[in-house]
């Protein structure tokens, strides 16, 4: 089955070969006493093979919900995918039976999380946890799995892998735990790695090491990565393409070099200004006043309008669609900065 509306879906970088992952118009709603609450709405993007997509946003922007929904990791009692598809290897993961989806999770698409301590099992040794996915997905024997587990620990830069195999998560530092998580995620040679704030809980020095590690693994193994972060500084060093999210919607998509050279959306500009200020010598940091609105109190128009210094009556009608502004770039703003106005035709 191929999507009928292909022409509408031309997100970031559609040249070259077909993308490894294509997300189309994905919406997720949480169940709430007073009816469903939209967590993300109409999110579409692609991840080409061997590329890194950075998804950037504040708490409440929907970036983690997006990541979790790709593998349907949010229990159906809590939230449901209300529309959209996730195309991966010719299949729509949103429609795949649970049994088949379990063969994709960890095998073809792996995930690492922000806090490795809560993601690792505290009462199982590193070795046991590393062997488990391989025995489950690859059907190999324990001795073979142990041998590979040691290789993996070596690959992610953990000294004395044999000794570490016998240790438990609490005996490892934060950086070591995240390395173990990465080793586990890579154990079944996935094609896509989803990393949800993998370095946020770590020291800056450890963060730099983990990003270096992910980058080198990505080059060596030809991995595709979705990196989720609130820090544009992390994305700059790491991603090929960037998607900025705000209040459940993708509001800007662009190649990394362009978004830093010329951010189009006022929100992206605000984020960039903050990070630039942080790096510079300046008296007072610029900030974006206010907070991301909760999903149940979204304004009718652009969700960023109440915090936007450029907003006027044009912004209050309905949310602006994510529209092309230049080749390979899209922005959801009625007047993207520095770009001629290309309004989406009705």
């Amino acid at each position, binding site marked *: 089955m191929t999507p009928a509306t292909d022409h509408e879906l031309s997100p970031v970088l559609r040249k070259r070969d077909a993308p490894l992952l294509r997300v189309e118009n994905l919406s997720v709603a949480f169940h709430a006493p007073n009816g469903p609450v939209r967590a993300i709405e109409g999110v579409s993007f692609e991840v080409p093979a061997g590329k890194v997509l950075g998804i950037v946003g504040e*708490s409440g922007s929907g970036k983690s919900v997006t990541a979790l929904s790709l593998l349907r990791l949010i229990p159906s009692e809590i939230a449901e995918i209300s529309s959209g598809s996730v195309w991966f290897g010719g299949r729509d993961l949103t429609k795949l039976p649970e049994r088949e989806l379990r063969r994709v999770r960890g095998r073809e698409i792996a995930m690492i999380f922000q806090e490795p301590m809560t993601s690792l099992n505290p009462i199982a040794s590193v070795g046991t946890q590393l062997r488990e996915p391989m025995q489950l997905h690859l059907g190999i024997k324990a001795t073979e799995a142990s041998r590979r587990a040691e290789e993996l620990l070596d690959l992610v830069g953990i000294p004395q892998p044999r000794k570490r195999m016998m240790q438990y998560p609490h005996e490892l530092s934060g950086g070591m735990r995240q390395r173990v998580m990465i080793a586990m995620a890579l154990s079944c040679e996935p094609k896509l790695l989803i990393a949800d704030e993998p370095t946020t809980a770590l020291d800056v020095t450890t*963060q730099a090491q983990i990003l270096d590690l992910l980058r080198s693994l990505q080059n060596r193994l030809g991995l595709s990565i979705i990196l989720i972060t609130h820090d544009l500084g992390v994305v700059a060093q790491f991603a090929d393409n960037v998607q900025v999210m705000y209040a459940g919607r993708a509001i800007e998509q662009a190649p990394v070099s362009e978004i830093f050279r010329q951010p189009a959306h006022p929100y992206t500009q605000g984020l*960039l200004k903050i990070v630039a200020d942080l790096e510079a*010598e300046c008296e007072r940091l610029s900030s974006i006043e206010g907070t991301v609105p909760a999903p149940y109190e979204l304004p009718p128009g652009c969700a960023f309008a109440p915090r936007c210094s450029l907003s006027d009556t044009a912004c209050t009608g309905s949310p602006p669609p994510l529209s092309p502004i230049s080749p390979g770039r899209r922005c959801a703003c009625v007047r993207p900065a520095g770009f001629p106005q290309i309004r989406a035709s009705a």
Partner: protein
Amino acid sequence: MTTHPLIIVEGLSKVYSSGATGSVRAVDNISFDMVRGETLALVGESGCGKSTTGRLLMRLIEPSEGTVQFDGIDFMSLSRRELKRERRRLQLVFQDPYSAFNPRMTAESIIAEPMLLAGASASDRRRRVVELLPLVGLAAHHASRYPHQFSGGQRQRIGIARALALRPEFIVCDEPVSALDVSVQAQVINLLVDLQQKFGLTYLFISHDLRVVRHIADRVAVMHLGRIVELADKKTLFADPQHPYTRLLLSAVPQIRPTVQTTPLRAVSGEIGTPASESGCRFVGRCPHAVDVCHSVKPQLRQFASGHQVACHLVATAETTK
């Protein structure tokens, strides 16, 4: 304003004994002064002893050695009762306000709790909370809400209001923005700067992120495994870092200019170790420049230039006596 220091820390150490493996010097013989109204940043990785130092200053943890003088008072010689009274002048803001608050208390009772403990009347407490909320950028109707009803940035504002409740002179800010989004970090840093100017506060600002420190600190002390390895005013530290560890920290800061190449130092950056060996420099295992003397002799913090101290054998120090 006098130049007499508000706080004088001398030879402060904390030793934890750990059974079979002997003892760990979590904080090892550190000394520094702070004048009223200044912000000293204490920077280092997890486990370097920076939070312990903050707690030692307030005598929330008893030091093994050394003294802390606050406004001329020897904190270490105070009785329990005197300490309780004097300690009101020092307050603490924590990294994760969510775990620092009782989830079943309203914002108002959280902010008022220090005053309750200090014996203030209900009407005084109420009045002070009404005063404090707008000071930290919260609205009056926030008073009756519970911690889970606030965003991370708002919770940190409540934490700051609580710290201000007793009109302290000195605040230890222990990673106050590390758990926040970058955009919210900027808001909270600006708030801390405003409050400092308004009330003449003195901050010890503990952080692992040099990016943040740059915008709030007057001086920066870099800590590594329990020792201060470099101390300088902010400009000097960023423009002319001397200790290899300071340079390592600076190179690890994320940059938004994708063209910037990472320095070769990154390649040798290992894990932070455990302070085991008492002789020699504790950074020796990760240092790209280490020579024989670094393994055997512990480097002392020495004057490198005026107001700039470095603890490294390989940094030529100015011919000055301490």
